[in-house]
């Protein structure tokens, strides 16, 4: 039979090692003896009290109890947890590129170009980011939504207009896919040569 303080030590170890918040019902499973939810809760409260002055606190979330760093320690921690820049998947990036260059487009158009189905998830992520929206519906059976990029998209990428996107021909040429060179050096009428934004 474990003493209350031993139970508390086990609870602490379990919560420190847990990958997600643990509800009391789960924590109770560790003990052979029938330990009441009330007892566990009281011990957790004691633990919380004991961690009060530390850089890590015991918090209750929707999913249960978990240890988490205190927000005020963030400034130290982020120096050694350099947040790896989040990246969109290839599916998201390609879908975005197609909408940017070929707008307005339907999901079907995107699928034609990518050659694979486009998941709702991908579209939703771009919509939630505020980078694309539905600007109408194509008058074909099913009336598919027409997507276009938004001003937020331009702002977030530091572009004044879509014309500042790298010209597609250039991209194609670097691949040596186009046989015929462009007929004349193309003077962009309304854009200085330096307008292409340099990525930060």
């Amino acid at each position, binding site marked *: 039979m474990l003493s209350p303080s031993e139970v508390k030590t086990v609870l602490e170890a379990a919560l420190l090692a847990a990958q997600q918040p643990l509800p009391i019902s789960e924590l109770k499973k560790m003990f052979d003896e029938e330990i009441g939810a009330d007892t566990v809760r009281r011990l957790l409260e004691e633990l919380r009290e004991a961690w009060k002055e530390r850089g890590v606190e015991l918090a209750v979330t929707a999913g249960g109890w978990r240890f988490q760093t205190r*927000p005020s320690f963030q400034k130290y921690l982020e120096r050694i947890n350099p947040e790896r820049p989040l990246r969109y998947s290839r599916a998201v990036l*390609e879908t975005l590129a197609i909408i940017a260059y070929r707008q307005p487009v339907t999901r079907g158009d995107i699928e034609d170009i990518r050659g694979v189905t486009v998941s709702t998830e991908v579209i939703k992520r771009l919509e939630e980011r505020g980078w694309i929206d539905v600007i109408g519906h194509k008058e074909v059976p099913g009336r598919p939504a027409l997507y276009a990029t938004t001003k937020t998209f331009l702002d977030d990428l530091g572009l004044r207009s879509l014309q500042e996107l790298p010209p597609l021909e250039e991209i194609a040429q670097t691949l040596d896919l186009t046989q015929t060179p462009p007929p004349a050096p193309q003077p962009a*009428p309304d854009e200085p040569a330096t307008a292409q934004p340099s990525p930060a």
Partner: protein
Amino acid sequence: MSEPVQLTIRTPAAPALNAKVRGEPFTDLPLDLYIPPDALEVFFETFEGPLDLLLYLIRKANIDILDIPMARLTEQYMEYVEVMRTKNLELAAEYLVMAAMLMEIKSRMLLPQPAMPGEEEEDPRAELVRRLLEYEKMKLAAQKLDALPQLGRDFLPVEVWIEQTLAQRLPRVDVVDLQEAWRALLVRAKMSQHHRVTREELSVREHMSLILRRLRGGGFAEFGDLLEPTRGVPVLIVNFLAVLELARESLLEVTQSEPYAPIYVKLAHAQPE
């Protein structure tokens, strides 16, 4: 072959054997080794190969590994191999190679020895002994490694949640990413012929989006207003092309009640949203 397998191994002591049958360790093997046929397979599976089997025979019989009686060892080894063969157990080729090696060593042992020890001639058993010792070392080392506390099995890493005060982090995208994405599309689809989009076309497409946005309410707009003539000729032309393209793609309805009357434009089948 229905008769029980009878193996005779003269063995003065039975050292620890790392073999298990049905979870029960073989600790005390009788001197006359009898293994029930159905346990035999399990028994042989506990050997990791001929070296492991040889080591077992040597250690079991308490033979000095540095002075192996080759005739006896070879004989016992061959008995096991024979049992495996007669029981139709899958016999890895390595066991046969080892059998050949043992016989070869045995026959070389029969050759006349050099008069004095320490001469050039090496003991024919030297290579076998070296391999047996090295394998035994590694076998024991493997057991020791397995006995070390192991992350995930015997203990867990502590990794508490890092509470973020900052705004939710969002993936970064820059122009180069889009360029790369398009390049990838080109490489995959080799679509350069089909999708040659010029700078002008892009601006047309941009204005197509802008016009659709303006008409999203569902009402009519006057054609002339859509063209935004006040913004200069390039914009006017681009807008004109955009309206034509939209009409061609049946996205716009263009109506004119009579010649020279104002032209009105609205979304095709605009539905109040």
